[in-house]
């Protein structure tokens, strides 16, 4: 988990379709409890699968869960990209 380069610090909302990131520890307080419970944990791998036609909500796969969340929530969850 800690092997990747700390190159890009961005949020889930800034992922491209198909791109993968890892949820950063520092945004723990910004993740709603419900999302945590659904597997959206710090350190977890998150992949953007699809963006809804009107750019919102977004469809992600995190920790094996396939979820749709709104971009306003996604923009508050910081991630680290591995590239």
């Amino acid at each position, binding site marked *: 988990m800690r092997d990747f380069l700390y190159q890009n610090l961005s949020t889930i909302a800034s992922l491209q379709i198909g791109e993968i990131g890892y949820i950063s520890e520092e945004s*723990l*307080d910004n*993740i*709603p*409890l*419900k*999302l*945590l*419970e*659904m*597997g959206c*944990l*710090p350190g977890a791998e998150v992949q953007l*699968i*699809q963006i*809804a*036609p*009107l*750019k*919102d*909500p977004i*469809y992600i796969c995190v*920790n*094996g*869960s*396939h*979820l*749709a*969340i*709104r971009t306003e*929530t996604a923009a508050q969850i910081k991630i680290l990209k591995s590239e």
Partner: protein
Amino acid sequence: MANKPIKVALIGNPNTGKTLLFNQLTGLNQKVGNYPGVTVDKKEGVSKLSATQNAIITDLPGTYSINPTSMDESIVLKTLLKKDIKESPDVILVVADVENLKRNLLLFSQIKDLEIPTILAINMVDQMHKKGISIDVSVLKEELNTEVVLISAKKNEGIKEVKEAIIRCHVAAKASPLCGINHKIDPDYFAKLKEISPNYSLYELWLMVTQNNFPETITASEKAALLSFKQDISKLKKYQHKETIYRYQEINKILKKTYLVDKSKASDVRSKLDKIFTHKIFGYIIFFLILLVIFQSIFDWASVPMDFIDGLFANFSELVKEALPEGVFTDLLTDGIIPGIGGVVIFIPQIAILFLFIAILEETGYMSRVVFLMDKIMRRFGMNGKSVIPLISGTACAIPAIMATRTIGNWKERLITILVVPFTTCSARLPVYAILIALIIPDTKIFGLFNLQGLVLLSLYALGFGTAILAGYILHKTLNINSKSFFVIEMPNYKIPSFKNVFFEVVEKTKAFVFGAGKIILALSIVLWFLASNGSSDFKNAEKNVSKLDVSQNLPSDELDKKIASYKLENSYIGMLGKSIEPVIRPLGFDWKIGIALITSFAAREVFVGTLATIYSVEANDDDVTTIKQKMASEINPETGEKRFNFPVGMSLLVFYAFAMQCMATLAIVKKETKTWKWPLIQLVGMGLLAYVSSLIIYQILS
């Protein structure tokens, strides 16, 4: 049965096949109510575990955690915190999906900490090989300290083992927490919390504090002590976050030893289907086509059995009339009860077809894609992507639709959805629409493809949806409710729907609907018949009065009988009632007979057809038994000599029924869900005014 039945609560994440397991365990031994008075929160069934032991199984709403964020999830918490001997479960059966075991175990770990005997049933194990999953059940059992059963509810495998596990679990009555979690976060803090009450487990006390949900059995001093923990909210929140992370750490440790996935076997059917169904153009086209198919089939497929039922009841009425001696009772039966019941039975085919489509859309996982596609659009109208499901199921019945809004966490979005759902064309409007359309719209094809009547029906649906959306926008801009919005929905894997689930769903919903509406209609048709067969002194002297008027004209006797019957109806109690509101509804093109139907259909819209059927049968000659449609088609407006149900009147009625809030059951459920009479009253008045004004405009323009 020798032993007292075991009370089992069935809990699991949504989309884990929980309902199918419930159906497999209980078969047709279930009780559900979808009508006010009967609660929909609880679905119960009896399961025969062994020769001497039964279980009462309660199916709780699907949830990801017992920390509720929506109304249906809070039902789960409430049930579990109950300490009442009659209602609290003896055994909890947690259903998990083998593919999402990690996330499902979070809920399991919470349940386990309540210290109630718990069983874990891992479902869809028939998929394991295909997905490259392997599980070490014996180690998992040991690690989780619980009964673990692998099942395939779909293939009816492992059901016997679940039953055996329930008995073993109940006998052993072994209940220990899994994580003992809270000690590790802040030992002093949780030690103090545990001191408050010896009657509850630590986790139960923690839930009461964090969820502000206190069972009735808790004492005042205990409650005060618990409330003192609520002072530091930020600490509570922090500890809840920590708790969840800790639970996942423990689960990961356990799964590392017991659960293996060979990722090379993963298939990408899901992503291929997602690319199509959530495509920015095709996604919407497919959604629209599905809606079009649903509505066309309601009108086309259902018309055959409906005509058959209509004819059947007319024949039945005739048969009874011939078989029974003349008298008050026969009149009540043939003019009151039989046409009244016919008015309900006639639209069973349409409801069944609607529920069938909705059940299939939900079962396949397609509905979540619609939520995903529609969320941004719906938000502009003050709603939520999840509002689409109530709006679509509102086309069957507003009552289950309003209950379905419980999954919407945001109160403002939920309230708006509840308020606008009754605009969608529910199946109770269908008989009214169907009969009026058949009377005023010619049965021709456009472009040799679309049935004109079907297209008119489709535009009435569009009118309903359009008004619902528009009303949502107005409410969004005017309602001043501050409610924090958070939205998440799982996108489940695509599934081939289970025939059993779909079948049960359709049967259950149709049954609840028919019996619910049937009772009202039966009662009303008896009342109606009585009010139509009794009246003032003019009513009693009808024959004398009519003969006096007609002395000079020398009418043939059957003409005279008809005149007497009309005169009687006009002077009956119901006639007087209709006449009293005639001045108000005359500008809309309605006469006093339609007025009677408008009054009675305040109970439920579909009563309109039955009422007119009853009125026209009372009025008609005894040997003149025809279908409802024929009766309405032959009704003449005495002022113009034209058909009563001509184009302007028909259109005016259609629009009136599209907008008016004519359903007592819906008003009752809105009161129940919003906990005040304010919102149902706003609906009643607002929709009534809209209906009156629109009908007025339509009739005045067309006539």
